[in-house]
């Protein structure tokens, strides 16, 4: 039997879900809705008496104070007029977290007859809705058909447990011609090109047998762009030059040449490791989850953060996750629905889903999310970018793995389901309007509580020395994890031993599933019993699935039969190196001038309100940025806790003031002009944010994340070459090594008309630094009237890609550049000024330049500022007030200094471009005097703050 229990908040309690849907319906332009009601629904499979049903409803599902419920009937909401009721439930096989928890809760009540639980949600709309409006509401607001559907009243919810008939599938490859090889690659979603298919064909010809499906799949996973980074490590023909392995020649090279003694492990494990103190190191990794987030924003972002947490967790013998970061690029949130290509979700819905996904996973894991950025551009409409980062803390003696044949291979954490099949290969291809249907298997929903339990248990097992190696199941699932970890030895895996979420998976699906929250550990035989007992004691599943061998082969078995066998050297080194062509040509951009208006306040308001500059408080507050108790500089700070911080500072060890500083730099608008200067500027921005809060240049490490269009196209790859070269040049001068990175190529979207939209070349630079004493930290809010304001660094006429030109609709090719040597001196000088306690506030100049920096400092401090633009250090061609105020030249800061510290501050800055430009005032007015001696800005800082806050105040 099936029991249906429906619950709703009693009247008088705010129903946020109903209100949210109601508001979204009005956003769609539908005004006839009078009332929205929301109901939570539970279906229980199993024999239950009336009393048991009543107990489950009253003692488990309903809150005694706020909820009402109905068993096998509906909670009635009286209304006049026509009501439309819609029930939404998950598609078969999609993780239903609440159902799983409910199942446990029912057992805790001592009721054991319930076999399975499913949840749904019901909406009731009162109002005169046309059929077309109902369809619009259902499709745009209630259902994402990738994971859920409108439930039909007699639909089957529970299915009998059935396994497919076991049959080994071989793929006839030996006799295939080129067209046939390509057909096989396409039909099986392998994303392998002809040369790769031919290489596989030759390999199996030499073995004199046809490959099985699982062997082909494993090769496709391992050779995918996502796992192998073949484009950036292959050969590139660029402007008459042949580059063998671009990454090695730029990113890796700078790290090698800098040879910092505090770099512990770089570019070899799941995350880069640097020294923290004598007992601990820290590691940092940033990943992208773009394609899954485009299809299902909540699940995509959710598993993006869940996945990157497992990178430090799978580094060395496992790091404890201590900080999350997130950076997003979306389409403009105010675009009309009508212009969206088919199959594309509205950017606002993408953003809401992505933020909720990161929030729910990060908060439930108890990891502070305290650094990030959001960038909006029309070219991200079909291809949003979701970067998720995680910092981990690892004991110094737990950084190395040991692979020993005879050790048990144990999978720990979540179960394996059909989720995420083909994620690694899919993420290496372009999106198109059929994506949501064809790749529905690639959508995953995370279960943060399973991952939290996994972390808690693994940390104990690590400290007890219970395993010798660990890695995460990420893209490519067990196939990648075991294949990578046992690369130098070999492994035998019994696929039918892998615990499954439900019946029906084939041996091949088990091997390549990208189900979340799983890790693989290698355990010495004598430790196995202890490991299994420890995991059981924390309710975390741990299952032996195979053994490490010494024959350098991977053997896959199912129900006692071998279903696949591959040589490790062919799997990992057999891939033919691709050769790609690259070129770059500077775009033709008209050089336009601005009129230098007498009043610059309107422009300042417009820039502050621009989506890329405005307050992200709506997002930041939804993240727990204080959990773990070590927050020193928060993302929101100042007199009212709402100013924009430069970088976050966190103390991972509560009995120490040693701290981790985190920041990022991203400016795709510059990349459309010149990716070289975009990359230089991104590094400069990330670094100067760390300098601004009190970090020092000699302890900063960088991460690179390239998100690009289709690099099979020479112009896309050429722009990437330029960006990578800037990474080398600037990082070399700054002395800031790269310790980890990742690329996501093929971020293009094909519309129905066949037109291809590529994202702007987008390089995210994340910076991490170790700060010896967090009590030296400086925040960006102005502190006291009467203090002096200094501008540090040279302002040039660099308005290309600037927010000022954007709000005016003007263009210029003069993108901000970096003068590395000069910047380095400034960074060192500002650091020493902060170390000497001469700086009360410091803010970097970035989007919106000096004007925005000063305005933000003033309203964050609840104070005013009075500055003279004539005093600002600038190059001789800067002749207009608007250029001084809004140019986005790099390597600049604004500092607040107390009167009695001025001399010392100026001493620290000697040799740099700097000048005292004004003072802090008690009256909350921002006044700027122009070159002609007239006021060009005279504006109440609260009004400026209001402009800055209103855009994303949802």
């Amino acid at each position, binding site marked *: 039997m099936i029991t249906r229990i429906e619950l709703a*908040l009693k009247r008088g*309690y*705010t129903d946020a*879900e109903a*209100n*949210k849907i109601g508001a979204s319906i009005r956003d769609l332009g539908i005004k006839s809705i009078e009332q929205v009601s929301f109901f939570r629904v539970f279906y229980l499979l199993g024999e239950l008496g009336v009393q048991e049903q009543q107990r489950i409803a009253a*003692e*488990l599902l309903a*809150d*005694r*104070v*706020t909820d009402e419920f109905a068993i096998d009937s509906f909670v009635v909401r009286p209304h006049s007029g026509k009501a439309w009721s819609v029930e939404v439930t998950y598609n078969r096989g999609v993780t239903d*977290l*609440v159902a*799983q*928890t*409910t199942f*446990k*809760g029912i057992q*805790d009540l*001592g009721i054991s007859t319930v076999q399975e639980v499913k949840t749904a949600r019901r909406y009731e709309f009162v109002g005169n809705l046309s059929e077309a409006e109902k369809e619009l509401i259902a499709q745009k607001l209630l259902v994402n058909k990738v994971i859920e559907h409108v439930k039909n009243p007699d639909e089957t919810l529970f299915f009998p447990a059935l396994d497919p008939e076991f049959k080994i599938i071989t793929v006839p490859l030996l006799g295939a011609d080129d067209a046939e090889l390509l057909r096989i690659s396409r039909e099986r979603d392998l994303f392998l090109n002809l040369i790769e298919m031919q290489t596989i064909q030759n390999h199996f010809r030499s073995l004199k047998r046809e490959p099985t499906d699982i062997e082909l799949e494993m090769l496709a996973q391992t050779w995918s762009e996502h796992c192998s980074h073949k484009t950036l490590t292959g050969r590139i023909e660029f402007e008459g030059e042949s580059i063998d392995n671009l990454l090695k020649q730029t990113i890796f090279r700078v790290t090698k040449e800098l040879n910092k003694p505090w770099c512990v492990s770089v570019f070899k494990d799941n995350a880069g490791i640097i020294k923290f103190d004598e007992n601990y190191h820290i590691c940092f990794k940033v990943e992208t989850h773009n394609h899954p987030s485009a299809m299902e924003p909540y699940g995509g972002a959710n598993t993006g953060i869940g996945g990157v947490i497992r990178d430090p967790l799978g580094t060395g013998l496992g790091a404890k996750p201590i900080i999350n970061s997130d950076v997003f690029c979306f389409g403009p949130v105010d675009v009309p629905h009508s212009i969206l290509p088919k199959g594309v979700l509205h950017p606002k819905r993408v953003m809401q889903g992505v933020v909720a996904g990161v929030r729910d996973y990060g*908060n*439930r*894991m*108890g990891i502070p999310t305290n650094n990030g950025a959001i960038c909006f551009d029309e070219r991200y409409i079909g291809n949003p970018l979701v970067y998720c980062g995680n910092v981990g803390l690892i004991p110094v003696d737990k950084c190395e793995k040991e692979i020993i044949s005879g050790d048990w291979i144990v999978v720990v954490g979540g179960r394996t389901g059909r989720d995420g099949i083909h994620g690694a290969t899919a993420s290496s291809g372009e999106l198109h309007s059929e994506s949501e249907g064809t790749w529905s298997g690639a959508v995953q929903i995370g*279960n*943060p*509580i399973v991952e*939290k*339990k996994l972390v*808690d248990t693994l940390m104990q097992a690590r400290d007890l020395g219970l395993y010798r190696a660990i890695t995460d199941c990420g893209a490519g699932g067990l196939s990648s994890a075991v294949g990578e970890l046992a690369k130098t030895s070999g492994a035998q895996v019994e696929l039918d031993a892998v615990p499954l979420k439900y019946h029906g998976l084939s041996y091949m699906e088990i091997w390549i599933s990208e189900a979340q929250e799983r890790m693989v550990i290698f355990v010495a035989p004598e430790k196995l019993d202890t490991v299994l007992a420890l995991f059981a*004691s*924390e309710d975390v599943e741990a299952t032996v699935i195979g053994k490490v061998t010494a024959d350098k082969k991977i053997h896959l078995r199912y129900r006692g039969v071998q279903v696949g066998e591959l040589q490790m050297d062919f799997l990992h080194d057999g891939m033919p190196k691709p050769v790609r062509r690259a070129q770059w040509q500077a775009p033709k951009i008209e050089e336009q001038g601005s009129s230098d208006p007498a009043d610059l306040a309107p422009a300042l308001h417009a820039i502050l309100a621009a989506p890329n500059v405005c307050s992200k408080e709506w997002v930041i507050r*939804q*993240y*727990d*940025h*204080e959990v*773990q*108790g070590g*927050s*020193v*500089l*928060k993302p*929101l*700070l*100042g*007199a009212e*806790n709402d100013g924009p911080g430069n970088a976050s500072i966190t*103390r991972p060890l*509560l*009995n120490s*003031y040693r701290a981790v500083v985190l920041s990022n730099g991203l400016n795709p608008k510059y990349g459309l002009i010149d990716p070289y200067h975009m990359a230089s500027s991104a590094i400069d921005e990330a670094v100067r944010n760390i300098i601004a809060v009190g970090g020092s240049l000699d302890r900063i490490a960088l991460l690179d994340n390239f998100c690009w269009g289709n690099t099979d196209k020479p112009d896309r790859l050429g722009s990437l070459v330029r960006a990578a070269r800037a990474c080398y040049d600037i990082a070399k001068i700054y002395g800031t090594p790269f310790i980890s990175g990742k690329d996501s190529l093929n971020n293009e979207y094909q519309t129905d008309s066949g037109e291809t939209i590529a994202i702007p070349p987008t390089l995210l630079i994340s910076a991490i630094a170790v700060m010896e004493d967090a*009590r030296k*930290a*400086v*925040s960006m*809010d102005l*502190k006291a009237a009467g203090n002096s304001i200094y501008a540090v660094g040279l302002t040039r006429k660099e308005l290309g890609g600037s927010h000022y030109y954007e709000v005016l609709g003007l263009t210029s090719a003069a993108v901000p550049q970096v003068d590395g040597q000069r910047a380095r001196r400034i960074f060192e000088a500002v650091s020493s000024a902060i170390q000497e306690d001469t700086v009360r506030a410091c803010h970097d100049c970035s989007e919106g330049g000096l004007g925005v920096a000063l305005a933000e400092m003033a309203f964050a*401090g609840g104070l005013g500022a009075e500055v003279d633009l004539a005093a600002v250090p600038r190059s001789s061609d800067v002749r207009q007030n608007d250029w001084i105020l809004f140019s986005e030249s790099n390597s600049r800061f604004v500092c607040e200094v107390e009167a009695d510290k001025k001399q010392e501050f100026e001493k620290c800055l000697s040799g740099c471009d700097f000048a005292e430009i004004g003072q802090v005032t008690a009256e909350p007015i921002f006044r700027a005097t122009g070159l002609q001696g007239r006021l060009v800005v005279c504006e109440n800082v609260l009004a400026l703050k209001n402009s800055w806050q209103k855009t994303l105040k949802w």
Partner: protein
Amino acid sequence: MVERMKPRVLVLRAAGSNCDGETQFAFQHVGAQADLVHINRLLQGDIRLVDYQILAIPGGFTYGDDISAGKILANQLKYQLADQILAFHQSGKLIVGICNGFQVLVKAGMLPRVDTTAEQSVTLTFNDSGRFEDRWVELTANPKSVCVFTQEMPERVYFPVAHAEGKFVVQDSTVLAKLHENGQIVFRYCRPDGSEPTYPDNPNGSVDHIAGICDPTGRVLGLMPHPERHIDPTNHPQWTRRALRAEGDGVALFRNAVAYYA
């Protein structure tokens, strides 16, 4: 000798607890011995509550808060550990629940027990804003409260809240009247100048701006704000605007708990 005087604190862990580390640190900071204990150890009897003096239920999202915040853990306490916990309380020992821990205590009927019944009479429901929010809040500590955790605490303290379901509501007005009458209201949200707040100073829409309550004995405390996140003076969001204080506002609460056993 000194060791013996250290009260032992059991910081209860379950799937999804996540403020256990900083809660343990807060107790250690004021001289207690604090152990992180998984609920399975209590259920299986490997560890006994009776060997401890203070039970702390930390913040987090136990079991994902999937049905409602803290519900599954509350039912575990109510149906599987009721005897142990009742005996622990009746022997004069202390219990504190922070954030998710407060939600657990309320849903298990251990707070507020305005009259001796253990039936749930208040709850913590969805914030009026409809979403999770992390923000610092000004609080008044009620000097007339019977709560042992806040004795001689300064009347104004500053802690962060970080929750989606923190709106305190009561079953009916008699419960609220009893809470006042019994001195069970411990913390209330207020404006920076101490006056009556609106959103966001009252961050969730709690009735009567209530942020924390105790039972009639004063030995069971539950609160939504996180005192364990304001132990070090650098936790204060505006510490860079003023001289660094000697310690964070949260220390006093943990010190009072330890001092109770001195």
